[in-house]
């Protein structure tokens, strides 16, 4: 996956969690949580969806890497390079 594709994947997962999520004005370097009004339960869904779709096991200590769209890309791109 390219970094654009990883970005799209994350947004698609978030849209799946919350179909009213508003991506307009979304800043890639700011926490997704605050911008989209997500809580820790929603974040668990991102982790579980990545596992379901791409068999990725993300350990709990790595969750902070999913804080912003940019950090998601940095963290996930190498893991999904063959996806």
């Amino acid at each position, binding site marked *: 996956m390219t970094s654009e594709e990883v970005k799209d994947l994350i947004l698609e997962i978030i849209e799946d*969690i*919350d179909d*009213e999520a508003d991506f307009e004005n979304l800043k890639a370097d700011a926490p997704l949580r605050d911008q989209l*009004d997500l*809580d820790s*339960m*929603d974040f*668990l*869904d991102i982790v*579980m969806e990545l*596992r*379901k779709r791409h068999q990725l096991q993300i350990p*709990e200590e790595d969750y902070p890497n999913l804080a912003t769209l940019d950090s998601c890309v940095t963290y996930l791109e190498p893991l999904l390079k063959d996806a």
Partner: protein
Amino acid sequence: MKVPLLVIGGGLSGLAAAVRAARFVPEVLIIEKHSRLGGLNSYFYRNKTLYETGLHAITNYAPPGEKSAPLNRLFRQLKLKRKDFSFCQQQQSEVTFLGCESLLFSNDFNLLLEQINSKFPQCIDNFQKLLLFINSINPFLPSPFRSAKRKINEILGDKLLTDMLLCPLMFYGSSHENDMDMNQFVIMFQAIYLQGMFRPLGTIKNFLDHLHRHYHSFGGKLRKNTEAIKLLHKNNTVYGVELKNGEIIECEQMVSTIGLDETKKLLSKKVSPAQPRLGFTETIYEIKPEKTCSLPRDKTIIFYNNSNEFSYKNPDEFVDHSSGVICFPGNFQGIERKEVVEVRATHLANYTRWKSIASCRDEYLALKRRTSRKTVTNLENIVGSFNSNIVYENSFTPVTIERYTAKIGGAIYGSPVKVKDGDIGFKNLFLAGTDQGFLGIVGSMLSGVSIVNQHILAKL
């Protein structure tokens, strides 16, 4: 057969736990002893009419846009859509203590503020302090029992107002006699007074059917009429259940929603020493209102107390008629007026007494009838006369509730001992539902979801 997750009990917490897990791993299995789903919130048929059990109102109302509200978080976690449900908010409800001012409240918190301001003007500043105090508490942090009653009385400085505010919260979710745990109080205060009450437009059966279809769409499986008689375990790991018919179902992980002591019994573990459990009776009256009958149309639920001192405890007599809850399921916003209206009345009841006469069918039925008559007299003093307009009535006692829900002592709010984190000393067996400590339909469903999130998902 072997399943990744076995859920014991098809009540609302079990269904929610199973849906949550099945979203990511199908092949989840729920086993339910009864022939119907729903547990404490289920239904039965008499004369081709469906009657609900349990449900008076669902607490924790929130409008669809409020993302962080418990109701909407629950829906997101289960991938349920608000637009697939029609929710009807309460009109207004009332706490009425004989010989005292009554308190009205609705889903608009300002009503309760105004009521306290006009009826307990000396307490309004203290009530604001109570709100600040409630805000300062994180009710989800595990902590030992703290008396809510003492603390609220201390803040409000008024025993009557304390009791009146506690009355609905106790009736809708306290497994403790004459008190509540502080965390439980905060959760219930938010659920009932700050968020509010509603019900689905259809029946509880429609709601359960929707959840079942949804669960099925993720690949989840359900077996009804299936009773576990033993949870199979080695040291602190469970590996399956033995069913009543001798069949064994193996599993990787297990969630039990049947109650703490109920679960321990199936593990052949010692149960905690008996503590008083609270039983209830409920009577459903079907009433054909005519001109002579003036039941309120604007009240959804009335919590009443007729004695000098509000008492919420296991009564010495069969039924404690001195206090109770009166519910008008037709008086929610957006529900069409029907030809026959329903009134439900709930009282505290003594399980042991009812159990002692349950085998003498005639005596038991006669007592049910007498109790129901006494309830009518009490209710008529509060809502006006309706006795001559009753076309059907039916009562449940704690014995009925025990028979259909398998809750020890028919105690709908379960054990006074709660296990907040669901951890009962096993690696792969966790407790959800009533005895995990979240109550009400939204609470018990969130209980199922949070136990799966915390303990199950990562290991599936």
